[in-house]
């Protein structure tokens, strides 16, 4: 019964999304207030029914209802309960239901917190969001129904969730990503709605900012978590592979970063308006493109869903309509938008322009690398190639280095015009000190001097020192939440840079053969294998090794990596064990048994690797902090008013 309810709720949701797309739009055209007002209530209803639908699917999983095909394919009675729950978004159909639910969540949020928007604009925005939901829910109902049943004959037990996904990271990573991807639909819808009015004022930019920052912050968390998850779960010590699906999440992030900066300039100085609109359209477009790439089978990737190609076709057509339509609208309506202000080459505006340019170029480079195999195959009629990390690193690193250079200076620049020698005069001691600090710390840690590493570390330290100094000069006064957010996010980036550089240049890793009693030394740490024994898990059996790690005769850690054998899915999985540290990670993973009692083992010492994710989280935190800005707080007052007066 419950799956049927879920299915029915989905159908109702489709109806509501159609109403949301159409009715307020008619209200705008006819200037009928009642129709325009209806948007909020419809949005609420849409959310409720999608939530119901989602809960029905969740219930089916928790109750082990294997008559539902999706549950049978992704769960098992022996699966621990938290993974039964997260298995809901473990594969294509269910994860897309989550996507649709989150979309309706953002829609409702816009409906509720839009005190600053006039009724006409609000109706337009919600109508666009409704239209997007129509697309998503239709896709679910007609091409990816998670509630499909296989009656009368259904398996007594499920095929189990892929062991790789039976992990905390999976519980949190996809929802965070979707919050980001889908969240960009808000600035997108705002941009579209604004284009339809033909007017683009500062209010539009001001209005978009908190939503964009929030979506971007969520996406940052999602990507950071993904990287961290890959690191400890995949068993090989890597944290970014330039894999197609990773790129699919990174491209909207890069564009989103450009967007938040561009919006700031548009709001404060009225510049780049037309570009900002284009960026808003593009960022969400990349979210959609990412969804297509991951779910269509067009790209072979470690991450790609195995999906029926007709579903991929559906998404492609949806893409064409949404993005093509938006760009067409942009082409016709954006002519009326002109920036008034002028600025000099050393102004903050100019730096933001360069910032955006570099980000767009970086995105284009990643897109090219991601799609090139497909392009090549099409152009050469079948020849297959792969584009690996070397390409991405070679292209991305220089672009991003230039970006960091701008980032050193930009927060200290002024709108319209900056006095260039002021910058250098005030800051030269810090600029000079940074490389010395980097060199000193490197030598103190007993590491070799690598000049490129020193250079990048200097860059990161410049960013941090100058930010700290600016804060100190203002006597630690925080003028606004936006400012604090900027400090946090920029510091986060600097931290992440440090993490990346140190880990890349100073990690030591080795694959070795070890028998019980053997000791291997890496970066001053001694890894000793005590032995390997059999252990039993809830739905697996494992070989567990015990490693004792010492340094200069001091016991540092005991690590127990496992090789798990999942009985139902007949899968083998490597579960690495890590001794995490602020300044270094110790990492051990089991390969395979060789000969009598020996094992192939992978050992790593990775200095500063956690800084990458701490940095990422700090970046996201900065984004969230900006939401607290005074300027947006009047919204909460409006919510109070709305709640009191909302019609049934």
């Amino acid at each position, binding site marked *: 019964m419950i799956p049927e309810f879920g299915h029915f709720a989905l159908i109702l949701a489709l109806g509501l999304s159609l109403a949301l797309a159409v009715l307020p739009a008619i209200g705008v055209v006819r200037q009928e207030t009642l129709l325009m007002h209806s948007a909020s209530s419809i949005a609420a209803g849409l959310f409720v029914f999608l939530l119901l639908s989602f809960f029905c699917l969740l219930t089916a999983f928790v109750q082990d209802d294997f008559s539902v095909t999706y549950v*049978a394919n992704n769960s098992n009675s022996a699966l621990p309960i938290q993974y039964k729950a997260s298995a809901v978004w473990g594969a294509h159909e269910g994860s897309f239901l989550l996507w649709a639910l989150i979309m309706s969540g953002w829609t409702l949020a816009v409906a509720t917190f839009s005190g600053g928007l006039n009724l006409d604009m609000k109706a337009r925005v919600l109508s666009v969001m409704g239209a997007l939901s129509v697309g998503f829910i239709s896709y679910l109902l007609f091409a990816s129904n998670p509630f499909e049943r296989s009656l009368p004959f259904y398996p007594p037990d499920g095929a189990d969730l892929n062991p790789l996904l039976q992990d905390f990271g999976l519980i949190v990573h996809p929802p965070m990503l979707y919050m980001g991807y889908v969240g960009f639909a808000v600035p997108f819808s705002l941009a579209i709605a604004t284009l339809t009015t033909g007017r683009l004022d500062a209010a539009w930019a001001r209005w978009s900012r908190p939503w964009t920052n929030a979506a971007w912050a969520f996406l940052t968390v999602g990507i950071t978590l993904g990287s961290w998850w890959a690191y400890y779960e995949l068993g090989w010590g890597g944290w970014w592979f330039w894999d197609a699906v990773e790129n699919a999440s990174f491209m909207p992030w890069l564009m989103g970063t450009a967007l938040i900066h561009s919006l700031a300039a548009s709001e404060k100085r009225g510049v780049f308006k037309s570009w900002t609109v284009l960026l808003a359209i593009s960022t969400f477009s990349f979210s959609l493109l990412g969804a297509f790439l991951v779910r269509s089978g067009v790209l072979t990737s470690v991450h790609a869903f195995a999906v029926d190609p007709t579903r991929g076709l559906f998404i492609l057509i949806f893409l064409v309509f949404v993005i093509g339509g938006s760009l067409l609208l942009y082409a*016709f309506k954006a002519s009326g938008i002109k920036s008034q202000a002028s600025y000099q080459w050393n102004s903050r505006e100019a730096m933001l322009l360069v910032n955006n340019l570099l980000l767009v170029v970086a995105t284009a480079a990643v897109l090219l690398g991601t*799609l090139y195999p497909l392009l090549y195959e099409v152009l050469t009629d079948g020849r297959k190639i792969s584009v690996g990390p070397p390409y991405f690193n070679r292209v991305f690193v220089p672009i991003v280095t230039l970006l960091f250079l701008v980032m050193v200076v930009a927060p200290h620049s002024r709108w319209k015009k900056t006095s260039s020698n002021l910058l250098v005069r005030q800051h030269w001691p810090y600029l000079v000190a940074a490389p010395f600090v980097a060199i000193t710390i490197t030598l103190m840690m007993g590491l070799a001097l690598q000049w490129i590493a020193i250079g990048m570390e200097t860059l990161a330290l410049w960013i941090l020192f100058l930010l700290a100094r600016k804060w100190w000069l203002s006597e630690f006064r925080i003028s606004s939440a936006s400012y604090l957010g900027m400090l946090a996010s920029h510091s986060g980036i600097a931290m992440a840079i440090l993490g990346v550089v140190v880990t890349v240049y100073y990690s030591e890793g080795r694959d070795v053969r070890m028998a019980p009693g053997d000791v291997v030394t890496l970066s001053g740490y001694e890894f000793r294998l005590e032995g390997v024994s059999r252990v039993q898990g809830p739905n697996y059996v494992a070989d567990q090794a015990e490693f004792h790690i010492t340094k200069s005769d001091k016991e540092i850690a005991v690590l127990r990596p496992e090789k798990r054998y999942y009985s139902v899915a007949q899968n083998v999985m490597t579960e690495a064990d890590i001794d995490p540290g602020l300044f270094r990670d110790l990492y051990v993973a089991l390969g395979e048994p060789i000969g009598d009692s020996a094992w192939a083992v992978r050992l790593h010492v990775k200095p500063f690797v956690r800084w990458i994710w701490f940095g990422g989280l700090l970046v996201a935190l900065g984004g969230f902090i900006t939401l607290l800005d005074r300027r947006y707080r009047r919204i909460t007052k409006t919510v109070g008013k709305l709640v009191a007066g909302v019609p049934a």
Partner: protein
Amino acid sequence: MSDKMTLNKSLLIPLGVFSLLVLFLALGFQLKNPHLLPSALINKPFPEFQLKDLHDSEKIRTLKDFSGEVALANVWGTWCPNCLIEHPELLRIATEEGITIYGINYNDDVDKAIAWLMRHENPYEFSVVDNEGILAIDLGVYGAPETFVIDRQGVIQFRYVGPVTHAVWQEKLLPVIEHLRRSESE
């Protein structure tokens, strides 16, 4: 509304770039999914094979064991949930419709397969053990379940990828079989 002003042509550039992108995606998509188009195997004879019978490991089955009527060949495995889902329909096709079905047990364990058929009943005239996937490769099989319609001459006339539900039988397989039977009786 003061739209329809002079169109700044440079604003069409993003749309142009996007169109190019879509073109490539569409082409690539089509390239990767040739089975959206007719299979290359249609109208080719069923490949030769020499595989052990599932229930009698001494017996080697070949094309000669095909009875010379319109029949189905079904690729299945105990590890495949969709095979279980289509199973009742296959049983119905074998008994009620009287169509012969040959089973190709793909990439499986012989004992498990025998036990599975005992538990769920056996719709197959016989099943062959294709553990290395040699026959599957020759058929262009990519996974299970897949079902082929074979005519009297042993030529493949249709291929269906996915579980054969009743709807699939009605809409896809039955028309082919009826067509074959009609044209052969002329």
